[in-house]
């Protein structure tokens, strides 16, 4: 293997192993920042040695052993606190005593717990949402600072700063490396789900710039969701989130036209939907249903997405079921966005006037004041009612509010189509 090939191999191995490494090391040193440094130290050693010695048979175990040695070196040089020293000593002792015949599976189980702890600490509510997103992508997604910066169209030093500050915050607040229990667990888990879905949405519908899609970010979010679903398979909402993302991602190929313009859900060519992802999404919904619990917000949204996915043509959509799902969603997690979506579904069942009634009730909603989809939906309903002049004004307003250049073009076209002779 050439040195360049070995380097590429090492980087790929690090991507596969880094989250597990950092998780295991954090349990040892009780500090995410130090754990990541140790993992990267091990990577540097690998980059120095492997081009000469070749990649070891079990590179993950090699990296972990090397990082642990570094941790001990640091201890000897007194760069870790006395308290951590004791913890590590205890940890090492416990490991040596654990000579059970089923050592492999015991370690696997430990690893799963550590990964879950790492998920929870990366999405800790003490951190700002932006910091949670950056830390999750970095520690669990294995993305470099540069990759995160590119995905979010933010300068690299900004992301680097954000990550450094987040790690410092966790250290200073002495946030424990643990899986929360009881009531706290639900709140913390929903913070984790929110972070993953935020990453997905950042990729799914870029909030700024001309790229309608940044699918790589969606793939990262999906991967995080799939990992989480295996870490906590008994949580229906996790499967709900995975189902929602799988089904939404299935529409990638159909969401944009030949010149990159967005195509709305009901106008999409369903032959372009990715049946593999739909199948996976529906399977995730089945897993959640088998758990038999009541449906939370992600499961309800995923069920709506599944209604669209199951309809072979837009005309076959089960709108009555979608209305009842949005009614349920409005009951447990009411929000102006849910109302807006509900208005569309209601208009499909009971006509545009009924939908417009719900939309008009949202007119004074401060959180939707600069949300382009409100005037866009309203314009659509007005157009169906033949109130073209009002519809045009709404589409114009929507165009002025969107930050996506291609979406703006589309909205301006729809406005023009409402003009006399348009």
């Amino acid at each position: 293997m050439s040195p360049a090939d070995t380097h590429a191999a090492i980087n790929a191995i690090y991507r596969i192993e880094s989250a597990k490494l950092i998780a295991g090391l954090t349990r040892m040193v009780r500090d995410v920042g130090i754990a990541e440094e140790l993992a990267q130290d091990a990577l540097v050693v690998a980059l120095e040695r492997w081009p000469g010695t070749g990649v070891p048979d079990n590179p993950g175990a090699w990296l972990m052993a090397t990082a642990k040695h570094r941790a001990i070196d640091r201890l000897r040089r007194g760069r870790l606190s006395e308290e951590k020293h004791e913890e590590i000593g205890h940890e090492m002792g416990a490991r040596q005593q654990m000579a059970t015949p089923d050592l492999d599976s015991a370690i696997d189980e430990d690893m799963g717990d550590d990964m879950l702890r790492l998920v929870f600490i990366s999405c800790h509510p003490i951190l700002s949402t932006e910091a949670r997103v950056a830390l999750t992508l970095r520690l669990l997604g294995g993305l470099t600072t540069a990759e995160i910066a590119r995905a979010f169209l933010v300068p690299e030093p900004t992301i680097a700063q954000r990550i450094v500050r987040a790690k410092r915050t966790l250290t200073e607040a002495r946030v424990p490396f643990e899986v929360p229990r009881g009531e706290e667990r639900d709140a913390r888990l929903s913070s984790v789900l929110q972070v993953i879905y935020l990453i997905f949405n950042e990729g799914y519908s870029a909030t700024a710039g001309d790229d309608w899609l940044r699918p790589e970010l969606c793939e990262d979010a999906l991967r995080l969701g799939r990992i989480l679903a295996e870490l906590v398979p008994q949580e229906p909402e996790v499967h709900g989130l995975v189902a929602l993302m799988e089904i939404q991602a299935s529409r990638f190929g159909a969401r944009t036209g030949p010149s990159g313009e967005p195509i709305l859900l009901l106008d999409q060519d369903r032959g372009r939907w990715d049946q593999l992802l739909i199948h996976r999404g529906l399977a995730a919904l089945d897993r959640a249903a088998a758990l038999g619990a009541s449906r939370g917000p992600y499961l309800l949204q995923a069920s709506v997405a599944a209604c669209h996915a199951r309809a072979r043509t837009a005309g076959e959509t089960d709108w009555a079921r979608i209305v009842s799902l949005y009614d349920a969603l409005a009951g447990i997690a009411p929000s102006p966005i849910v109302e807006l979506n509900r208005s569309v579904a209601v208009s499909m069942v009971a006509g545009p006037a009924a939908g417009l009634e719900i939309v008009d009730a949202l007119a004074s909603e401060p959180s939707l004041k600069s949300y382009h989809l409100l005037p866009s939906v309203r314009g659509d309903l007005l157009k169906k009612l033949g109130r073209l002049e009002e519809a045009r004004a709404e589409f114009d307003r929507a165009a002025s509010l969107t930050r996506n250049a291609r979406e703006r073009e589309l909205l301006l076209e729809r406005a023009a189509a409402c003009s006399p002779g348009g």
Partner: protein
Amino acid sequence: MRFMVIVKANKDSEAGVLPDAKILTAMGKFNEELVKAGVMLAGEGLQASSKGARVRFSGGKKTVIDGPFAETKELVAGFWLWQVKSKQEAIEWLKRAPFEDTEVEIRQVFETADFAASDPTGEIRKKEDDLRKTIESRKR
């Protein structure tokens, strides 16, 4: 990006002999690792080629040839679809698979965006769309 990992047939798979418990356990463990890492999208094992067939297209003629097929090493016996960040990552995952004495192939799957280069004006895609619409309207 997605990769298809293509596992080739051997004498046993062609004879319909199922892998022994040891291999099945090892493969099960490997699959579990892939699922836990969020890498595996799909994977299937294929039955012997004696249960399959080929359709040969030649000079406007279509000829059906029933299995089995002779060239065992060229036959596909199973596949995975993996979602990874790079070809290198797919290679590193494959190295962890419990295979012996075989060659396993990794191939990148086309994404929608990959077709843009050979269709810069979107004309081919438009024609394809029109065709789909025509087919749809005939169905009704």
